[in-house]
């Protein structure tokens, strides 16, 4: 299975696209996804933080990922 990950703000600048597709075998959990993304794009590891959202909610590292999930990297927010 492959996964699509939406990118915003500085993560989109780092990766160079607003959606990245991770081919099979795709990461099974949020933690694996972060590790894989940081391996491919070391600049992600230099951010103050980088969370993962699954279906519009912040997800913990052990959260499982499914192909039907809406997944996004969430760099440090700065609203207001």
């Amino acid at each position, binding site marked *: 299975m492959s996964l699509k990950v939406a990118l*915003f*703000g500085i993560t989109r600048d780092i990766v160079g696209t607003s959606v990245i597709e991770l081919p099979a075998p795709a990461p099974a959990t949020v933690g694996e996804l972060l590790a894989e993304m940081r391996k491919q794009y070391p600049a992600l590891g230099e951010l103050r933080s980088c969370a993962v959202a699954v279906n519009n909610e912040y997800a913990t590292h052990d959260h499982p990922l499914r192909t039907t999930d809406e997944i996004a990297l969430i760099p440090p927010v700065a609203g207001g």
Partner: protein
Amino acid sequence: MTPHLSITDQPVDVASALAAVQTDAAGAVNAFIGTVRNQSGGRPVRRLHYESYDSMALTQLGHVVAQAYEKWPMLQEVAVVHRKGTLELGDVAVVVAVATPHRAESFAACQFIIDTLKQVVTIWKREEYEDGTEWVAAHP
């Protein structure tokens, strides 16, 4: 008491946000209005670019407001409007308006909502300077 929450690429209408929270049950309306400042850490800022992950931002904003209703059960009405896109100096970036029976809770609830919004709502800010741009808070 359904909160009025929106993220818009149009100029924020502060008067509409205030009108949205108006209710006969409230003796206090409190609003925070965030505007674009001309400097950041001593560095002149020309304009700001806000980017939003709208669906998640509205979901998280809903959680923030739900927490406010739990903390202040007397809270009557809430409106939050956040701008996205390119903003010039002086433009309104965000308005938070709350209505409560008495003033003390209106200050507290309004501050809680804007402070928590800044921590969890998926909106990003890129400052534009004379010699480039930078994503705010991205790096330690």
